[in-house]
């Protein structure tokens, strides 16, 4: 099931950079409505210095926020999305991909790397929401399988940080099948006893939630995350139900036993280091 990500501002205090705003010096915070100096926000881990609202992070920003300085080595597979269906909507999928690549400077939505956190070697995979909603197609499936393979080989913990609207419609059934593919990968970690820490950030929904993201040994939700399978509008239209105020927030997920902890962005790095301390092993140690 695909979740529309167009209405995110309604229910959490996060705001995606708008196209064209990329170069702006000032950005408007969706939390307090104030114009804040972009650089101040960057330095502040993507948190509004006035009201504490979280801005979207790019994959690079997320990585920088988590890993030991200069420890990240990008080992993503050099692959890009194919267009197996010849999909055309408002524009051809190939065009949409090019646009996303230009806008983000990324080849695709998933970045995989070797890194250290508090000295612990890990394999880290991060999805970038700016790239077609961080949605999962064949590339994300392959990147995650690749990342897990490395983690299993090195016996290093695997950390996945998701920001994704779910499956990527434009690759049709192949996107759906990535749900199974990522779970088969997750099984490799079980076989070798390597921990998998799933970090859900805004948003973690649809087919990614219903596959690898939900299968962490430890699952951490970033405060402000949207976590849910079906989209709000779909639920309202299908069932006519009124949605509770906290619906599909990180706190909702916590209250309903879906995640181990809800963690502030500022605490996320130290939280992960704390978790890693419990797991011995890793070839370098």
């Amino acid at each position, binding site marked *: *099931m*695909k979740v*529309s990500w167009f209405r995110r501002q309604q229910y959490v205090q996060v705001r995606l950079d708008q196209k064209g705003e990329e170069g702006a010096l000032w950005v408007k915070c969706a939390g307090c409505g104030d114009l804040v100096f972009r650089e101040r926000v960057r330095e502040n881990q993507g948190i509004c210095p006035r009201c504490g609202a979280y801005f979207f992070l790019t994959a690079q920003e997320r990585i920088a926020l988590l890993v030991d300085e200069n420890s990240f080595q990008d080992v993503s597979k*050099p*692959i*890009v*999305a*194919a267009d*197996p*269906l010849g999909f*055309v*909507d*408002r524009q051809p999928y190939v065009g949409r991909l090019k646009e996303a690549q230009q806008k983000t400077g990324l*080849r695709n939505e998933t970045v995989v790397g070797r890194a250290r956190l508090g000295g612990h070697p890990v394999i880290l995979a991060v999805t970038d929401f700016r790239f077609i909603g961080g949605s999962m*197609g*064949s*590339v994300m*499936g*392959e990147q995650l*399988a690749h990342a897990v393979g490395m983690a299993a080989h090195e016996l290093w913990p695997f950390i996945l940080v998701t920001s994704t609207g779910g*499956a*990527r*419609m434009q*690759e*049709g*059934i*192949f996107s*759906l*099948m*990535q*749900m*199974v*593919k990522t*779970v*088969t990968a*997750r*099984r490799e970690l079980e076989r070798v006893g390597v921990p998998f820490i799933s970090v859900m950030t805004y948003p973690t*929904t*649809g*087919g990614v*939630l*219903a*596959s*690898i*993201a*939900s*299968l962490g040994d430890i699952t951490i939700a970033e405060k402000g995350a949207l*976590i*849910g*399978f*079906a*989209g709000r509008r*779909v*639920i309202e239209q*299908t*069932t006519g*139900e009124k949605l509770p105020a906290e*619906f599909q927030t990180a706190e909702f997920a916590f209250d*309903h036993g*879906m995640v181990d902890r809800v963690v502030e962005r500022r605490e996320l790095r130290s939280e992960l280091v704390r978790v890693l301390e419990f797991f011995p092993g890793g070839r370098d140690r």
Partner: protein
Amino acid sequence: MTVEDLIAELQEKLAELKRVARENGRDLTPDIAELEQRVAQLSQGRGAWDQVQLARHPSRPTTLDYLDLLMDGFYELHGDRLGSDDSAIVGGLAKFAGRTVVVVGHQKGRNLAEKRARRSGMAGPGGYRKAMRIMRLGERFGFPIITLIDTPGAYPGVAAEEHNIGGAIADSIHAMLRLRTPIVVAVIGEGGSGGALGIGVGDRVLMMENAYYSVISPEGCAAILWGDRSRAPEAAAALRLTAHDLLDLGVIDEVVREPPGGAHTDPEGAARSLGEALRRHLDELRGMVPGELPALRGSKFRGMGICEGAVPVTHEQGGE
């Protein structure tokens, strides 16, 4: 609205646009091109929407219909042992071709009241947890597992989210990858996204000829892409969701022939055809070492996906 109606309507609009362009001398080339492309896409994929309609036909045989026709006694089991019994998924023991099998399937309901009670086959978390429980029962006794998929999707509701529907589907996929007993999956009607896949991880995946299987419903896709659910036929064509599409794409293993006109015109014929295919695949799988099935099943799905700029990832046949 049939695809034919839609095409006729678009062609009328197209003629009008061309007339305006000619008469007023305005450059409407992009609009005309877009419309022409839509018509082309629809004409090319007109089978897609027709098959979606057939897959949803109100008289189409359901899981329980096929069980009645195919199985020599179906003993339904109930409950997830966790607090619920979700009737959108049925499951139990059955005798098939003289042997015991475990069957799990979505059940839409065969009349209005039943459809409501079963939420038209839209299962909640309890449904997937019941399915897991019953499939594990099958594994304990070495019974092969047959799953029949027929759902518009998992139930989108508050209670479903409260009980972690995402996690339930993930767990079910995970559980099916671990089962040490043969699994044959057949999409008999609607194969609606994660709700379908939740019981869809098999050593073999078959589709009835007029079934569809898609990452998103055509309506949902149209709503997201064009903000217009009525453009579902186009979305259906774009999504390549028919049985033959999926066979071409290497995602399923076989298309099961239906009687001319569709399964609802001759349920017995459809059941014979499905039964023959299930039996054949189960026979092939029976020869395999149970302990090896999970690894083969895993590598089958592990190999699905098409990327560029790297060693091409092709579909490896599991279990052959």
